[in-house]
């Protein structure tokens, strides 16, 4: 039987001709990732949420951040603020001194504080006073052409203004409505919401910081971590709701209590109480489940001659992790305390509070005449995980972050040269990466774009509303 002649010989096709060649042609993983994620080339790729329009009736960090996530992923977000004044976060700046200008023509000496940063990128900014009867029609028209809304007013406020889910659902049954606030319905319905409230009411602050026996107090995180965390949790719910709507055509109401969300971070704390009746205590920079796995103090600063006390005095902390038996053995050898390994050679023994006190004390004694870098290097060279507790300056200078594009400078169209990290710290996406187009817009910057270009109101009408303080 005559062999069938192939039209195309495999040898003629492009690509590897042998297993060896295939191996050679494979791009090494590092190079592959650098090409795939290519920091700085995000704008060449499509946006996953393009086509979604979201209304943001939000303030501070918690709810604005839930929408910022959508905006960074490509949704068209319209942020609605109080005319002339703007939302309070514009006026909330670190130590009341870091502002970018301008904010609005009517307040020439007022800027927007850096507190506004990262929670409002890529949003279009309009102003509207919901209280005015003229505003209601405008609001409903926006609802009709949008996919969803996030608001943070006290429970029932939007309902009183006939803007809540049960009203807007009748106009737009596909509408996804988010209320985000402190407590939500229940006995404490009218409590307001702040990050510190979330940390305190959820019980988080009670387990942060050192125990009072050691001179510590319940400590909140300096940054508003529960605001950032809760905002992201809302975004997760929104994305799920969008998928549900894709399948059913129906909207959803998301009722999001910040104090409730923060309880998720308690870990084993509440179940521990249920099991033993034990209230978890604070254990500071050490760990209740792993030892050694904590932050220790070194004797010398890495920046003894710096003026800034945060560098001069505070750059002295190192995290050390050596809880596996062999790592702990090595650690004890490095600090010349082999007796500690003989005494606590199992992890169970090391975990006991008394053992932790002795071990960490020995570590700090060893580190007392060393700088933070010396300690980190000595331990890393010995194969132990040790890393300086970095500060903002070091995060900015970190080559790892720079090469990955985590930290980068942005030529903001309105405000000029600003450093951003928020949008590029949330996980890289090969096909539809997040991006920051602008950090924020001036107050009411897009009134013409939204009210005139999108909704079709004449300019004379806008001028009248502006003079009456409606927009």
């Amino acid at each position, binding site marked *: 039987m005559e062999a069938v002649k192939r039209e195309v010989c495999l040898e003629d096709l492009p690509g590897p001709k042998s297993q060896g060649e295939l191996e050679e042609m494979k791009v090494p993983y590092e190079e592959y990732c650098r090409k795939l994620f290519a920091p700085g080339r995000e704008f060449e790729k499509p946006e996953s949420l393009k086509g979604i329009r979201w209304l943001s009736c939000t303030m501070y960090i918690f709810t604005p951040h839930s929408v910022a996530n959508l905006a960074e992923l490509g949704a068209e977000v319209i942020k609605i603020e109080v005319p002339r004044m703007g939302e309070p976060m514009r006026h909330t700046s670190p130590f009341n001194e870091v502002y970018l200008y*301008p904010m609005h*023509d009517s307040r020439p000496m007022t800027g927007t504080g850096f507190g506004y940063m990262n929670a409002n990128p890529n949003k279009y900014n309009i102003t509207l006073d919901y209280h005015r009867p003229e505003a209601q029609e405008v609001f409903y028209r926006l609802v009709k052409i949008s996919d969803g809304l996030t608001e943070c007013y006290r429970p029932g406020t939007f309902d009183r203004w006939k803007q809540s889910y049960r009203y807007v659902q009748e106009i737009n049954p596909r509408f996804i409505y988010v209320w985000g606030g402190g407590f939500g319905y229940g006995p404490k319905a009218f409590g307001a919401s702040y990050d510190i409230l979330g940390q305190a009411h959820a019980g988080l602050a009670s387990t942060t910081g050192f125990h009072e026996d050691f001179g510590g107090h319940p400590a909140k995180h300096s940054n508003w971590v529960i605001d950032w965390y809760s905002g992201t949790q809302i975004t997760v719910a929104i994305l799920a709701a969008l998928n549900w709507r894709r399948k059913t055509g129906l909207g959803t109401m998301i009722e999001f209590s910040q104090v409730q969300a923060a309880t998720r971070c308690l870990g084993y704390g509440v179940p521990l109480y249920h099991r033993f009746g034990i209230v978890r205590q604070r254990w500071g920079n050490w760990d209740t489940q792993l030892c050694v796995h904590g932050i220790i103090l070194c004797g010398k600063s890495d920046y003894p001659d710096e003026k800034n006390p*945060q560098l001069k005095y505070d750059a002295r902390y190192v995290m050390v992790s050596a809880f596996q038996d062999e790592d702990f053995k090595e650690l004890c050898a490095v600090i010349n305390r082999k007796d500690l390994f003989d005494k606590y050679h199992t992890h169970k023994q090391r975990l006991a509070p008394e053992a932790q*006190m002795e071990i960490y004390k020995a570590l700090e004694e060893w580190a007392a005449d060393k700088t933070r870098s010396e300690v980190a290097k000595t331990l890393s060279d010995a194969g132990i995980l040790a890393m300086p507790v970095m500060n903002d300056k070091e995060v900015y200078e970190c080559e790892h972050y720079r090469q990955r594009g985590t930290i980068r*400078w942005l*030529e903001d169209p*309105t*405000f000029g040269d600003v450093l951003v990290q928020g949008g590029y710290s949330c996980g890289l996406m090969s096909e539809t990466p997040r991006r920051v187009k602008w950090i924020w817009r001036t107050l009411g910057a897009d009134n013409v774009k939204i009210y005139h270009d999108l909704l079709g109101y004449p300019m004379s009408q806008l001028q009248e509303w*502006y003079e009456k303080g409606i927009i």
Partner: protein
Amino acid sequence: MCDIIWCRKCNTVNYLDPYYFWNWEGKTKCAECGTVYYIHMIQGFMYRGPEERPGEEPDILPLYADKPYEGYARYMPGTEGRTRPYQCTPRDIYLGKPDPVKFSIRGKPVRGWAPQPPSTGVLGSYGWKWDIEKLSPDVWQEYQEKIKRGEVSDW
């Protein structure tokens, strides 16, 4: 157990913070009544003391003190003669009022000062793009000079 030093005379809790005072021997003074106490702490436990040492000088002042029975009335760090100053203040150049800048730390223009030129748009809102050369010519000029002097960098 270390409170760290609970002065029973005036019910004031004196804190030596930070926690490396868990292993410490020396004398300190009650922030409220001025009684000098000697203590010797090992791993956070009061090994000796607090023992009154009248007439002696303290080695260190507490960092902070409060009175839990009186609604937590307190002495903040750096109260003269009572507590020692807290060294980790954020930075000595914090002014507590807007600190105007025209350039970022890498030398490029940023709108960190007021007032800005009034908007050319309508309804009091600003146009899309900050055209530095046109809207802020003095800053533009300064920027060109900075470039010449090599004061503008990538990072």
